[in-house]
């Protein structure tokens, strides 16, 4: 029987990450019902792209307040403003528990403050997305990002040109963790495309579902090769049986291995700006190598990143918080 209400709340859609947790809880848990509220949507081009299955507080205030007062656990994502904290604190029932989860912030620097220490809300548990962020918040419980769709693989045939998908979400540079793109890499990709060695799909501002379908039809996905982290893109790429190109470092991989509790080698195709041209050429000209990595991606995802298994990370945390009375 569904006994407890878990309410996910975030200031912005956070590329739908909270909403996915909410969704999979409803699907896989017998104890927890879940909803997801966002305080506001992204502006401009990103408007409506990631908010489809969330309740927008501004549009549905009454319903939102009702959900807040019904909640047994409020799972806060990223940083709330003081006003937003007040809305929660003034409406929750006294037994309500709070969980904080840190996602990737838009800007660097003081965004990495240990916000949880001084917020008016007393958090019962603090979590952090298990990518590069764990080293910045080493005491927080690591939790995975989720991919909802079923895995698939579209192995490249010998007479096919590899389809390479690159979808950087922005082009800012100069940060330590938030860079997504490098001019050198884009140049190489574009010239390979011109020479008909690859078919490059450079895509931005597309709905996540559509992007996922494009990825299913691709053979190679590029995450980013600058910072040493892997991101949601890499997880989706594994799910789509793509060769997953990133520069995920030893500690990002260690975090992933620990979350799935297996020392199996993570099948990322590691690429850095040093020598990326040679490595990339070697890959795109070797169909067998591509197929190899594609299969490894699919296998790794199916074995370790199964959605039900990953959702258990969250269910265990909720059980712990609820039973900690």
């Amino acid at each position, binding site marked *: 029987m569904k006994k407890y209400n878990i309410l996910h709340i975030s200031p912005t859609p956070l590329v739908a990450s909270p909403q996915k947790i909410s969704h999979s809880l409803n699907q896989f848990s017998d104890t927890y019902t879940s909803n997801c509220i966002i305080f506001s949507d992204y502006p401009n081009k990103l408007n409506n792209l990631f908010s489809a299955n969330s309740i927008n507080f501004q549009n549905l205030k009454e319903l939102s307040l009702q959900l807040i007062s019904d909640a047994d656990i409020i799972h806060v994502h990223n940083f709330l403003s003081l006003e937003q904290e007040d809305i929660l604190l003034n409406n929750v029932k006294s037994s309500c528990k709070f969980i904080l989860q840190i996602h990737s912030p838009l800007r660097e*620097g*003081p965004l990495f403050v240990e916000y949880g220490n*001084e917020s008016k809300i007393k958090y019962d548990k603090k979590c952090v997305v298990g990518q590069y962020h764990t080293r910045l918040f*080493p005491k927080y419980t690591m939790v995975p990002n989720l991919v909802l769709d079923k895995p698939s693989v579209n192995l490249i045939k010998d007479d096919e040109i590899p389809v390479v998908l690159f979808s950087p979400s922005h082009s800012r540079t100069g940060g330590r963790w938030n860079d997504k793109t490098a001019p050198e890499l884009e140049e190489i990709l574009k010239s390979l495309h011109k020479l008909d060695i690859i078919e490059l799909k450079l895509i931005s501002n597309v709905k996540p579902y559509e992007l996922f379908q494009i990825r299913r039809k691709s053979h190679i996905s590029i995450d980013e090769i600058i910072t040493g982290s892997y991101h949601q893109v890499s997880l989706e790429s594994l799910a789509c049986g793509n060769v997953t190109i990133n520069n995920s470092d030893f500690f990002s991989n260690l975090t992933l291995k620990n979350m799935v509790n*297996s020392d199996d080698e993570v099948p990322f195709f590691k690429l850095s700006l040093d020598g990326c041209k040679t490595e990339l050429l070697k890959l795109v000209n070797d169909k067998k190598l591509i197929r190899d990595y594609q299969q490894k991606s699919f296998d790794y995802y199916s074995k370790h990143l199964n959605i039900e298994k990953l959702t258990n990370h969250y269910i265990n945390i909720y059980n712990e918080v609820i039973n900690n009375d």
Partner: protein
Amino acid sequence: MVQQKLIKKTKKLIRDPKLFFKDSKLFNKISLNKFPINIKGNSITDNSSFIKPFKQEPSIIGSIQINNNKLIFDYIDKQVKNSTNGFSTLFMYREEKQSLLIHKPYINLILKNRNFISFKDKSLYFLINKTINNEDIVYSESEIYTLFKENQILRSNKLQDFRNIVELNPLSIESILLKNSNPNLKLIYIVDNKESLDFITNYKKEIDVLIYFDKLNTSYISNIPRIVSFSNSQSFINVFKTVLIDTSYKIDSNFFIPVLCNTDNLDNLDKYNEMTKINGLIDLNYKLKNYTNFEDIILDEDTIINNFLLKENIYSLYKDQIFKSKTQKDFKELLLHCLKEGVFFEKI
């Protein structure tokens, strides 16, 4: 002979008194040795007015202040030359009374050493801190975050060409805000009074290097990667130069130095030396135990660091800590610190 010399000197004194004092051995001795003790009595300020100002007054890139909980940053956009990118320094000072930079304590010493790479025209810039009487306010992290977020200049990463931010006797948090505008900036504080020392203890984890006057009691200061002292003006300038060399990028010759090494021969070391992004190498044994957090993975007794190397520019920043480290736990703490600071590690 002596008489002739005296006549000559007297003539010079009448003809060009400024030059006379500038060339005087006695004067140079006074101005170089005494100032830290006399810092409040401004004796140096008076003496140094005899020095001819430099043809080109050093570049002041603006002023900064916190007023009514708003950060006001008047920034004059300067093209900081990339040629000394690694050594470029932004020096913040408080303007108590208006005067040329060359007349200010500490700064006059720096300007006298302008042949040093970090103090050359193209690498050294000044910023006036206009905040007054702010030392009693302790800002929380979320207040710092709000101040930062509301300032467009900070958010637009204008200071990305600088490497070091230096502040003399800080009493307010502007330099911390500046440091947070770019992940590569290093924050160096020069402190010669207790008031300022008390102030910075509130923000220890933001500071990369503390340079302090050795008559101060700093025993209660810890957890700053690098702490060094000076006793007089000559030792100040030497220490300051060393610190700047240590914190700066060494682009053309930045090699891996072992922090903890169990092998003589590391394969691929040459290859990694050439990679500019990688500045840490690690080899550790671990057992996966479904740990809940990152720190537990590293600090577990079953996790053993076999090899740990850092590029010279990172190594020199943490060398005090490295020399003090003896146990696996010490090295693990250092590793966690480096990871938090963003050092890019590769497995060797």
